């Protein structure tokens, strides 16, 4: 519909700052979403410190460390891809994003094998071995599956997000002057990284 008068501050204008603010606000909700789980973790760990310690020995610290490195690297490539596009180098930006997606895939594959190994050993809710675990250790594994599962889901969402942005860069709708969407997906990706930064010591490095 055509209109004859338009207000200076309008909800119909493209406003990079607004969209960035919106993204940050959304990230807060994500932080608190995981925050709820961290609360549960804290309480149960305080109530069952020994069980958590023993249960944590079932995880492989090295796989966890590799995954941490993978995620940190992908965070760097996303950050660099933003620099690239801001400097007008869309091609480099695309390459860096592709690397990010590749890292995400590596992360998920490693997680798949980790979970797979757990399930093979019967550490899945409801399996015989699992239900015979001592008091408190079951809670550890419930939390482990719940939190890393939810995190994995976020990795997938972040990946999809980045793929969409890649398409937009290719067709030019994200460019040197207009790249808030890329920045936002970068922010989201860093958040996924941030959460992992806490999950890693809390599950793998209990001593």
């Amino acid at each position, binding site marked *: *519909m055509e*209109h*004859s*008068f*338009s*207000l*200076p*501050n*309008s*909800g*119909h204008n493209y*406003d990079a*700052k*607004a*969209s960035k*603010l*919106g993204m940050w*606000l*959304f990230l*807060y*909700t*994500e*932080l*608190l*979403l*995981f*925050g*709820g*789980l961290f*609360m*549960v973790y804290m*309480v*149960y760990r305080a*109530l*069952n410190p020994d*069980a958590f310690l023993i249960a944590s020995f079932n995880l492989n610290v090295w796989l966890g460390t590799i995954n941490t490195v993978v995620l940190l690297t992908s965070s760097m490539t996303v950050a660099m891809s933003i620099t690239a596009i801001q400097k007008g180098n869309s091609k480099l930006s695309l390459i860096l994003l592709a690397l990010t997606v590749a890292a995400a895939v590596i992360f998920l594959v490693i997680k798949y094998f980790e979970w797979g190994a757990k399930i093979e050993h019967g550490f899945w*809710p*409801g399996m015989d071995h699992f239900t015979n675990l001592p*008091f*408190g250790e*079951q*809670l550890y594994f*419930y*939390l482990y*599956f*719940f939190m890393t599962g939810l995190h994995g889901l976020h990795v997938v969402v972040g990946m999809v997000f980045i793929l969409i942005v890649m398409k937009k860069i290719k067709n030019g709708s994200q460019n040197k002057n207009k790249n808030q969407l890329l920045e936002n997906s970068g922010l989201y990706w860093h958040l996924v990284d941030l959460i992992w930064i806490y999950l890693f010591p809390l599950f793998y490095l209990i001593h």
Partner: protein
Amino acid sequence: MTGTSASQPSYLDVTKGLFSWIFTLDHKRIGLLYLYTVGSFFLVGVILGVIMRLELFNPGADIIEAQTYNQVFTLHGVIMVFLFIIPSIPAVFGNFFLPIMLGTDDVAFPRINLMSWWLYVIGAIFALGTLIFGDGPADTGWTFYAPYSVKTGTNVSMTVLAAFVLGFSSILTGLNFIVTIHRLRAPGMGFNDMPLFSWALYATSWIQLLATPIIGITLLMILAERVLGIGLFDPAIGGDPILYQHLFWIYSHPAVYIMALPAMGIVSEIIPTFSQRTIFGYKAIAYSSMGIALVGYFVWGHHMFTSGMSGPSAWIFSLLTFFVAIPTSIKVFNWLATLYKGSIDIEVPLLYALAFIFNFLIGGLTGLVVGALAADVHLHDTYFVVGHFHYVMLGGTGFAFIGGLHYWFPKMWGKMYNKAVAKLAFAIIFIGLNILYFPMLILGVMGMPRRYYDYLPEFHTLNQVSTVGSWIMVTGLIIMLVNLFIAHRKGKKAPDNPWNGITLEWQTKSPPPLYNFDKMPKLAKGGPYNYPNAKNS
């Protein structure tokens, strides 16, 4: 470009057809979509409420079975909380008037706004879908306390999912409003020149944004336990049901301020308009909203005083609970002072606003009673609590909602309702409310627990009084709705500014054009409520 104002069609007329509504990006239409949907679910909730009252008219089984009763109060609670009162004022009036009051033409993210309405609809379908799918609606109470919510065979999963989706919708609304307020205020309008309704919405939005994720994840945990067997609250393996309560109330206490703050915002608009003078203590009212929102995060434990919480925790939570009462009382006193030396026009919206103060006082003061540790041990989970929250939610927020509806009705549709009938409806609703809920307070002091399908004979009389009150109230509601419906159909045309209001929504036409203004709105000099005709002291 120069458009003459006459050539601008109103937002109601620009396009026609169902699709132009359900896929609209116009914040005003989205506000109306919310009004119609929220209103319909509210009526469903009212019917369920009345069914409960009928069952409780006499002790023993009368019209429904125990299990059905339990499902009815759960569905009533879920509908009233998640489908009615939380979205009510922000999503209806906030959507419609926030951009206009700020002097802009839409919210910051119109598409997200539409999406949040759709999420609301999907959530509502889930919530009511339990009537058809699975073994009937949940029978856990709206609090879904574990471990019962994990054990029962009713369709808790779907209800919980509904609450999750609705939470998402509420988060998106909050996010949208915060960005709108930060980025889209008319040039020259600082934070302290915003109308108080915007301030109230700002505080509310922060609660929606930061508290809702917690209930989201908590409900997911219940879902995970029911569906996948991930028993995080299962006492048999060392889980703690009380932890669930902590998490639930970390959201649900702040949520009561999601319900109350926007209502206070509406009252802060209505009172200066009908007093025709500036509001008393603008900053105190604005900042106390933020104060309530902030302190409100840290008092959740007052719902758990008898649940085995430690003594030191209990007194910290109790003390903090009392501290939230202070910003609230500041607001009440400011409203009173605004009446002082005003030039008061007793119109329907003002009546609702003043009734709000009265009811909210009863609700708030009974809140103080249950905030005190000793008294709460006696009164927790009795009808006293039921009385308390109906007074604040229905007597407070509900009244502010209807007050807002009467206040902005002429602006939204450009029509005027019959004021005499509206006043009659008001009187009936007000009397009905007090007959309905005051007896509950007494019942609570006598010791009648809530969520009781059946009760001992000594509680009989007061329950009957209360049920009669519900009939009176519904009569009033029907009169009100019919009055508004007739006005909507064939009411007289309303002027652009029927109440001589001064905030920006009264500067545009009734109903407003698609992009809200056809000329630059003028901000009032010396604050948003500085009436030029009033004397200065």
